[in-house]
Every structure is written in C-alpha cells, then in structure tokens.
C-alpha cells in the first residue's frame, strides 16, 4: 500500500554529506589538493561578486563625472604640487641610488632592488567576518600567484592567499594567522610581526626585555623568508611593555598601510633572487 505521507529525508544521505563536508574541511586545511576546486568555485561565484561591486563602482564613476569644476581645479592644483614635490624627491633619490651603488661596489655586496608593481582594485565584498581578508579584481589571468606580496602607498598590506582566474583573496597582515618577518629600522633587530585580528594592531614576537625598543620606532620588512621584498615600511611601534616575569617584552605596532580603507593596491612582482634561494644555494654548497 502506498503510504499516506511521504517518508522523511533520508538519514543515510545526511550522514554521507556530513562526512563529505568534514573530509573537505580537513583536506582544505591540511593539504593543497583543493586549490583547483576552490579556484573553479570562485570563478563560478565571481559574477555575483562583480554585481555587488557594481553599485560602488557606479557611485565612484558618477561622483567623478559630476563633481564640481572648482573641486576638480583644486584637486588638480593639489596633485600638481604633490607631483612637483615628488619630482624633487626623485632627483635626490637618483643621487642617493648612485651613491648607494658606489658604496655597495666598495663593499662588494651585490644586492639589487628591482621590483615591479601591478595595480589591482579592491572589490567591495565582505568576506568571512572572523578573518581579515580582502578580495581583489586580479587573478591568474593577470599573472597573480599565491603568496604574492601586496603593498599600498603607505606600506605592506598582506599577501595573496587564494587565486582564481579573475579574482584573488588577500590575507591582511593583521589576520591572526599571518606572520611577517620584520626588523626595527633604527636598531636592525629582527622580529616577527603577527596580526592581532580585529584590533588594528601587530604583535612583535620574541623581543627580549632589554632590546631597547622605543615607542615610535619604524618597523620594515626584513626580507627573510624570501616572500616579501626587503625594506618596505610595515608599521610604527606604539606600545612597549617590558614584562620581567616573562622572557620577552610585549610589543605592539600599528600597521602603516591603510588596511581597510583602500580602493587600489599594488601587487609586487619581485624579480630579484629572493633570500630563500640564496640560503638554499648556500646549503647546497655546504
């Protein structure tokens, strides 16, 4: 006899999907096999992200097209002044560069700073609120690769976490799962800057109590690890708490980059041999 009510959902099927999701989570967390799956899924959802970004983009377009003449003139003048200032600075930079090259030759050190950058746009998408990530509109089609460093006009922003053909996710340096090898510009002391999550702060790890760090010290990338180019500003030390009970002092810094307020970011294409490869070569020689 046909039952009057259809039976409920199948429990076996639920168990199957639960096990599949758990397996997916473990594989995604531990291994790299799912990169292609993620990339293709991201391509599927990219139209949705593009459509959400559209009103913001249209707003920008409208405001740039209908802004006052006076405002435009003012802006133009401002940019003109800034350009002049930068030109003057650039002249001095050329001089310093030459001097640097000469001195390096004297020291027989061959370190070239030759990085190129590509501009990318931040899409107005809210990703997972637990983490600190942003989405940019450049992907493998534009030559973006995983772990590629990102900068803005003020300093280091983060690195590329996942790439798909037309977009990529960037993990910011303030994410608790991000660590960045840095050094104190004044003393040359090397340390690691770890993100502190929602607080817009970086924690500087493993600094001894007597390291002589002062509030206001600038921290820059140290280039160790080979992922980030050396010498880009990361932040400023704002808090130094020497703790005698602990082996290390608690030091915090504020990031230099405007992490959450950017529309344009720069992707660095570092084509100088990174530190990691030289270490490898060194190890091979031994």
């Amino acid at each position, binding site marked *: 006899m046909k039952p009057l009510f259809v039976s409920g959902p199948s429990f076996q099927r639920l168990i199957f*999907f639960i096990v599949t999701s758990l397996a997916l989570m473990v594989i995604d967390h531990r291994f790299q096999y799912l990169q292609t799956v993620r990339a293709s899924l991201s391509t599927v959802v990219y139209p949705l992200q593009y459509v959400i970004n559209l009103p913001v983009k249209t707003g920008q377009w409208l405001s740039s097209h209908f802004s006052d003449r006076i405002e435009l003139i003012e802006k133009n003048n401002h940019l003109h002044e800034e350009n002049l200032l930068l030109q003057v600075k650039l002249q001095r930079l050329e001089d310093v560069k030459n001097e640097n090259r000469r001195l390096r030759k004297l020291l027989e050190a061959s370190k070239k700073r030759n990085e190129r950058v590509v501009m990318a746009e931040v899409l107005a998408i809210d990703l997972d609120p637990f983490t600190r990530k942003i989405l940019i509109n450049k992907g493998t089609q534009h030559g973006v690769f995983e772990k590629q460093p990102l900068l803005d006009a003020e300093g280091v922003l983060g690195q590329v976490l996942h790439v798909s053909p037309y977009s990529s996710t960037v993990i910011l340096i303030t994410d608790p799962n991000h660590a960045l090898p840095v050094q104190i510009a004044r003393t040359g002391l090397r340390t690691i800057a770890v993100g502190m999550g929602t607080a817009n702060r970086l924690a500087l790890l493993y600094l001894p109590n007597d390291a002589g760090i002062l509030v206001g010290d600038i921290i820059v990338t140290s280039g160790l690890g080979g992922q980030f180019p050396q010498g880009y500003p990361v932040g400023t030390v704002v808090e130094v708490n020497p703790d005698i009970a602990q082996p290390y002092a608690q030091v915090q810094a504020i990031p230099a980059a405007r992490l959450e307020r950017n529309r344009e970011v720069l992707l660095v294409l570092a084509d100088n041999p990174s530190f990691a490869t030289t270490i490898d070569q060194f190890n091979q020689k031994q």
Partner: protein
Amino acid sequence: MRLEQRRGGWVIAITFAVSLMFAVMPLPSWAVPWRPDWVTMVLIYWCIALPKRVGIATGWLVGLTYDALTDTLLGLHAFSLCILAYISIEQHRRIRVFPWWQQSVIVGVFVALGQLPAIWIHGTLGYETMGWFFLYPAVSSVILWRWVFVILRDMRRIYHVF
C-alpha cells in the same frame, strides 16, 4: 505530471543567488555582526515549502558556494546547511502550521545552531573567540523572517513553483 512537478526551478536558483549576494554585501562596520543569515533563511523556507525538491543536497551545494564566496574553509557552511536542511525537512509539517512569531523563533534557533560549526572551527584554527556575537545574526533573522517568508511565498505563488 513529472513536468508539472519540476516547474520554476530558476526561481529557487535566483532566490539562493540573491541571498548569497546579500550575505557578502558590504555593510557599515557596526552592522556586520548583525548581518541576518539570508542564505539559511532562504534554505529553511524552501525546505519547509518544497521538501521534495529542496533538501540536503541543495543545502550542501549552496553551502559550498557560500564557502567559496566568503573564502572560508571549504565545507564549513556546507556542513551546517546540510544539517539544517535535514532538520527543516524532518519538521516541515510542524513548522508550516506554526503561527508566524513561533516560526520566527524556530528560524532564530536554527540560525544560531548553524553558527556553531563555524565557531568551533575558528576556535581550532586559532582565531579569537566571538563571545555572544554568534547570537546577533539569529536575533536579526528572527526580526526579518516574517518579511522573508511573505516575499518568498508570494514569489512561489506568482511563478507557480511547486
């Protein structure tokens, strides 16, 4: 008869797409913790309205898309949404006849339950704990369920989705 049963699948797809878009739409920072769980609400609606068509598999697929969209661990939302789909279908006869305020409370409980796997996973991955933040989407979903329900029901009736 078969054709009759399969009408209006595109309406379901579009409602899910729109809910996914709402889920990542930029909000002012004070409103981010209060973002209603649109995807879960739409899933619960279709599960109690059309339990034969929308079910565990749909919930799982939508969850996977959600994961790709928000760049979370693949399978995280898929996990919670397939369980929620199961519970909603299991209870759909009961939920359907509830008065709307009781329905809203049930939806709030489901949304809060759906947040739990994310909290556990984030805890094990070393992110800071959220405290009672996970209840905020449940509260806003309770408030908005009435309208979500009415809009989706009207869409289902206008486009004859059965």
